């Protein structure tokens, strides 16, 4: 049974509809697309990466590397970056998530955060590396996003989890 080890006792989660997954991904694209600017743009967490990582970790059979790649292509068009730049980064991210899925049973949220930090750093590094290869420079402030994304992981996880719980209790009553 795959559960999040935040609660002391394992709980049964209700199955998640595909529409729910799609909506969360679209919401993440929306949040990424808000008109961030200046220092806020550098501090902006990568919501899409977090959502993809969440689904890859929790539902690896439903949401895997291929879908992450497709979302990456959408992100590429939205950001007008090179075709495949986000896609490659998110492919690696999804792989990390799928691998981490097996460890999920052993780790609590704090330990997960360290793993997530590593995966998100990898994603950011890959993106910046491609940019550096093509355009020849890197803005170091870009990596601030790694910190904010990682810090957001725990609240994000709890939020998703509680949302699923609520939906379940609604159904029972």
């Amino acid at each position, binding site marked *: 049974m795959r559960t999040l080890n935040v609660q002391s006792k394992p709980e049964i989660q209700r199955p998640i509809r595909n529409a729910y997954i799609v909506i969360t991904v679209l919401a993440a694209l929306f949040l990424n697309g808000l*008109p961030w600017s200046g220092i806020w743009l550098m501090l902006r967490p990568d919501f899409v990466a977090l959502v993809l990582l969440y689904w890859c970790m929790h539902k690896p059979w439903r949401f895997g590397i291929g879908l992450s790649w497709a979302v990456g292509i959408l992100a590429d068009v939205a950001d007008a970056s090179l075709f495949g730049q986000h896609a490659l980064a998110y492919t690696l991210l999804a792989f990390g998530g799928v691998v981490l899925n097996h460890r999920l049973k052993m780790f609590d949220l704090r330990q997960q955060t360290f793993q997530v930090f590593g995966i998100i750093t990898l994603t950011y590094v890959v993106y910046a590396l491609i940019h550096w290869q093509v355009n020849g420079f890197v803005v170091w402030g870009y990596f601030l996003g790694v910190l904010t994304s990682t810090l957001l992981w725990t609240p994000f996880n709890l939020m998703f989890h509680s949302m699923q719980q609520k939906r379940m209790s609604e159904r029972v009553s």
Partner: protein
Amino acid sequence: MDSTQSFRFFNRGPSPVVRLVFFSALSLLLMFVDARFRYLESARSVVSVLITPIQRLTAMPAYLLDQIGDIFITQQAQRDLKSTNNQLQIQHQQDAAKLLQLQSSQLENQQLRTLSSLPLSPGYTAQLVEVVYAERDVFKRRVLISKGANAKMEMGQVVMDDKGIVGQITRVYPWLSEVTLITEKDRAVPVQVLRNGLRSIVFGAGDTSQLALRFMPESADIQVGDVLVTSGIDGVYPQGIPVAKVAKVERDPSYPFARIFCLPTAGVDQHRHLLVLAKPPKLPERPAEEPVTGEVDKRAKGRRRN
């Protein structure tokens, strides 16, 4: 259907590693094709149709805030409006006087040009556009404007505001176009110092909203406060539009070139409304090498690698 997953004894489909390798290779291939050949622009427009609704939505919060702010017009705001109105009127009168002078000198200039049988400097028509959203990528200085292929926007058109050059259209979508600002890293604009006619090229700094004059010798006659206008050389930018003002000059004898920093005169990061100039008539082809109308940034790239 979720609970049955723990009973799956057999893997479905290829393993994660295989998928990783496949999709990574696919991404790399796409990137290579996109960076080298630009074959994928049509694919990009197709996908952009999918993503455009979300992008439109992202512009909504700011728009709503604007609208709400409009409802609550306070007295202070009214006073502000009045004072700006007054200012604008004064400005308008001054400008009108200047415009009359300009018209007369334009006529004179035209006559002189016809006398000396030079080609007439063309007038430029302009289209008003609105900035729809700013770039969400830390690495880029770009904005997206509200007209695209539907309004006959073309790559290479120059974008300006009331005070000077803002940038250039670098990509055209069905309903949007992408404007690369002059502050983008290594974006080059051919300029002239207004005071003494010295020709140079101004480059974007990228990470800050600054510009820099590179490769100017120590002895170059440039002072703080000098205004740089477009020189019109290369036929991309029309002549005589303000680009930047020199903000700081560092002359270090241990370095072969002076370090000159400029600030753009246009509100590159500020306005919501911009003007897109019609493309200037093509200059005759440059003899060898690349055509004159080629993008300026290509040359800047080559220059950096040297």
